[in-house]
C-alpha cells in the first residue's frame, strides 16, 4: 500500500465528522479531507483525485446560497463528473423509502448507518468497497429483505412456489402444481428462474435456506 487512500468525508455535524475522522485514522494509512457542506466537498472532489467519498444524505445547514443541498444531489453531481471515485453513504436515515431510493437509483458502494457504525465496520466496508464489492449495514440489509418480503407477498406465483416447495421432493414436481392467474401451468424453467430471484431477494444460499427465511419472515406459515 504505497499510496494512501484519499478520502473525502461530508457531514453537517462537526462532531460526527470528527468521530469518523478519528475512526479512519485508527484504521490505517488514509489521507482524509472533511467538509460540512456539499458545495465545498464537491469543489474538493473536482480539484483533487480522491478514491472515496463518504457522505451523509440530509444537510440541515443549507442556506440560500447553497447549491447542493443533499447527499443525493452531491452523489449525482459527482457521478456526472465521471470520476473513478467510489461513493459510500453514511447516514442516520433508515426509512426504507430513502434507502431504497438511494440504493436503487444511485447505487452507492456502501450504505452505512452512523449510529451503529464503529471503526471495525468502517474498515471492513472500505476494504469491501475498494475490492469493488458492495457493503450495506446489517439494518439496511434487513430493510431490503423486508421490502423484498412485501413484494413477494404481492406475487401470487412466488407465494405458490414457496408454499408448495416444502411438500415436493424435487423442483420438477412443481410443474403442473403452480398456475398463473389465467390458469395455465408454469414451466420448469420459469419456476427455477423465480426461485433464483427469490433466493437473491431474501439473501438465501439455497432453496432450503429460502424456505426457512420465508417462514422466518412470515411470508409462508
Amino acid at each position, binding site marked *: 500500500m504505497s499510496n494512501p487512500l484519499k478520502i473525502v468525508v461530508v457531514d453537517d455535524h462537526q462532531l460526527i465528522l470528527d468521530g469518523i475522522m478519528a475512526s479512519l485514522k485508527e484504521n490505517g494509512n488514509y489521507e482524509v479531507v472533511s467538509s460540512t457542506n456539499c458545495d465545498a466537498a464537491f469543489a474538493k472532489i473536482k480539484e483533487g483525485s480522491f478514491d472515496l467519498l463518504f457522505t451523509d444524505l440530509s444537510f*440541515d445547514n443549507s442556506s440560500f446560497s447553497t447549491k447542493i443541498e443533499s447527499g443525493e444531489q452531491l452523489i449525482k453531481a459527482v457521478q456526472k463528473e465521471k470520476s473513478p471515485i467510489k461513493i459510500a453513504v453514511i447516514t442516520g436515515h433508515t426509512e*426504507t*423509502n430513502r434507502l431504497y431510493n438511494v440504493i436503487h*437509483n444511485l447505487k452507492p458502494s456502501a450504505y452505512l448507518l452512523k449510529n451503529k457504525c464503529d471503526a471495525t465496520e468502517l474498515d471492513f466496508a472500505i476494504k469491501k468497497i475498494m475490492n469493488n464489492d458492495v457493503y450495506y449495514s446489517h439494518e439496511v440489509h434487513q*430493510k431490503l429483505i*423486508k*421490502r423484498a418480503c412485501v413484494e413477494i407477498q404481492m406475487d401470487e406465483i412466488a407465494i405458490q412456489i414457496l408454499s408448495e416447495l416444502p411438500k415436493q421432493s424435487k423442483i420438477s414436481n412443481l410443474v403442473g402444481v403452480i398456475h398463473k392467474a389465467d390458469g395455465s401451468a408454469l414451466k420448469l424453467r420459469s419456476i427455477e428462474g423465480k426461485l433464483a430471484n427469490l433466493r437473491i431477494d431474501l439473501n438465501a444460499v439455497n432453496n432450503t435456506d429460502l424456505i426457512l427465511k420465508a417462514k422466518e419472515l412470515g411470508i409462508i406459515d
Partner: protein
Amino acid sequence: MQYKKHIFLFSFFLICNLVFSQNSMVEKDSILYYLNNATGKNKLKELKRAVSLAEKIQHDSLIRETNIKFGLQSYFKKKHKNVEIAQQNLTKLYLCSHDSLALAKVYHYKALFHLLNFRSDSALYNYVESKNISARIKDSLEVGRRLLSMANIQRDGKDYLGSEISAIEGLRYLEPINDYRYTGFLYTNLGLVSSKAGKYKEARSYLNKSQEINEKNPNRKRKIRARLNYYNNMGTSYINEGNYEKAITFLKEGLDFDSIAVKYRSKYYLLVENLSDAYILQKKPEKAYQGLIAVNKLKFKNKDIKGLSTSHNLLSKYYYAIHNEEKAFRHAKKGLKYAKKSKHLLRETRALKLLAKSNMVSPKTANDYLKRYIFLTDSLYKRERAIRDQFAKIRYETGKKEKENTLLKNENDEKQIQLEQEKQQKTISFLLALGSLLLLGISVLVFKHRRKKMAFEAQLQKVEAREEERQQIAKALHDEVAGDLRLLHQQLEKEKQTTIAESLNAVKGNVRNLSHQLSSVSFDEVSFKDQLINLVSDYYSSGCKISLSGLKENNWSILENSIKRTVYLASRESVQNAHKYAKATQIKIWLSLDKNNAYLRIEDNGIGFNLSEKASGIGLKNQRERVQELGGNIEIVSRINKGTTIQIEIPIHV
C-alpha cells in the same frame, strides 16, 4: 345408439314430409283432372269438388281457376246460386291476394248473375267494371270478351249505337292478338246491328268478314256452328231486306249440312223457321209446311216451350197464308199459351197480333186481343226505351268517368309530386333541424366538458399551489425552526444544561416530525408503486402483517401526481396510525382503478378510536382536506376494539 336414434327420427320426418307433399300433390292433380276433364252430367258437380279441394290446399291460382270454370258452367246451366258462390269465392280471393284477375272475374260473374235475373242494365254496368279492370292489367282477350257480351246485351236492348261502339272497341283489343272466335262474334254482332238499322249491305259485309275469320278457327265444331250462324244471319238480313230468293238460298245452304237436325238442333230450328218465314213472305207457303211441322214436332218432343211458341206462331202465320182461318186461330192460341208460359212478351205480342186479325172470334174478343197487343207492345217499347236510356246513361257515365278518371289521375299525379316534394322538403328541413340540434347538443357537451376540465385543471392547480405552500412551511420548519433549535441545543449542551437540552431535543423531534408530516413526496425519483411498497416495508413485521393488493394490477402512471400523492399520504397516515396508535397486528390495503375513479381502502384490526374526539388529529384532518380538494370522498369507520376502515374515492379525470 344415440346416432341410430337420430337416423330413425330423421327418416321418420322425411317419410312424413313425403307423404304430406304427396297428399297435396294428389290434391293438385285431382283438381287439374276435374278442371280439364269435367264433362257431361257431372260436370258441375266435379267442378264444385275441384273448387272445394282448391280451397282446402289454399292454392291461390287454383282457387281462381276452379271458381272461374265453376262460375261459367253454372251460368250456362242457369244456376244462379252457384254463379253467386263463385263470385263470392273470387271476391274472397281478391281480398286476400289483391289479384286483379280475380277482381275482373268478380265483376264478370256479378254481370252473369244479373243476366240470369234479367237485369241487363246491372249486368252491363258490371261488365263495364270487369272490362276496365282487365284493360288495366292489359288482359286483351278478357277485355274483348266482356265487350262482346256488352255488345250483345246492348243489341238485345236495342241500343244499337252502344252495341256498335262496344263491338268496335272489342275489335281493337282482339284483332291484335289474333283471336278468331270472339273476333268473329264481334263482326257477327256488327252485322246484326247494321241489319237492324236497315243497313243491309254493310251488315252483310260484316257478316262475310265474320265468316272469313271463323273459317280460320281451328276448332271444327265451333267453325261449323259459326258457319250455320252465318247462313242464318245472311238469310235473315235478306229477309229483312225483302230479298227472299237470296235468303232462301243461304238458309237452304245451312240446312244442307249433314245431320244438322241432330247435331246442331237450335241452329236447325232457326234455319228452318227463317226459311219458312221466307217462303210465307214469298207467298209460297206450301213450301214452308213440311219444315214447320217437323220442327214443331221436335220441339214438342223436347218440351221446348219457348220454341213452341215461335213454332205455333209461325204455323198460324202459315195457315193464315193458306187461308185456313180455323187452324191459324188454333195455332195462334197455342203460340199465346206457350209464350205466356215461357214469359216471353215479344212472342206473346206476335201471337196476340195473329189472334187479333182472326175471324174465328167475335169482334169484341178480337178487339180485346188488339188492346192487349197494343198494351204489351207499348210496355215492351217503354221497357226497351228505359233499358236503352239506362245503357246510354251507363255508356255516357263510363265515358265521363274515364275522362274524369284521367283528369283525376293527372291531378293526383300532380298532387303526388307536390306532396313528394313537400315531403322531401320536410325531410330535408327535419334533417337540418336534427343536424343543428345535434351540433348544438355536441357543442354544449363539448363546452360543458371543457368547462369541467378547466375547472378540474384549476382545482389541480389550486391543489398544487397548496402543496407548494405546505412544502414551504415544512421546509421553513425543518431548516429554520429546527436549525435554530439545534443551535440552541448545542449551546445548552456546551453550558451543561442537560435537562433543558433534552427537552429542547424533544421539541426539535416534534418539529421535525411535523415537518415530515407536511412534507410531500415526489414520484419522479421512485415510482408510486415502489414508494408504497417502501412504505409498507417500513411498518411490516412478523408482529404486524400488512397486505397490499391491486398495486401491480393497475397502471398508476397515468394518474395526476396530486392524486397519487393523496393516495400515498393517506396510506402512510393510516398505516402509521394503525401501527403506532391502534396497535394493529394486521393491516390490509386495497387499491384499485377504473376509468373514472381511483379507490383506496385500508382496514386494520387495531383498537380503533372515537371519531368525535379531537385527538383523532391533524393527520386525519389533513387527509380529508387533501381528498376533498381533489373532489373525492373519504369515509372513515372506526369502532373501539373493532379496528378502523378508511375508504377513499378520487375522480381521476373529467
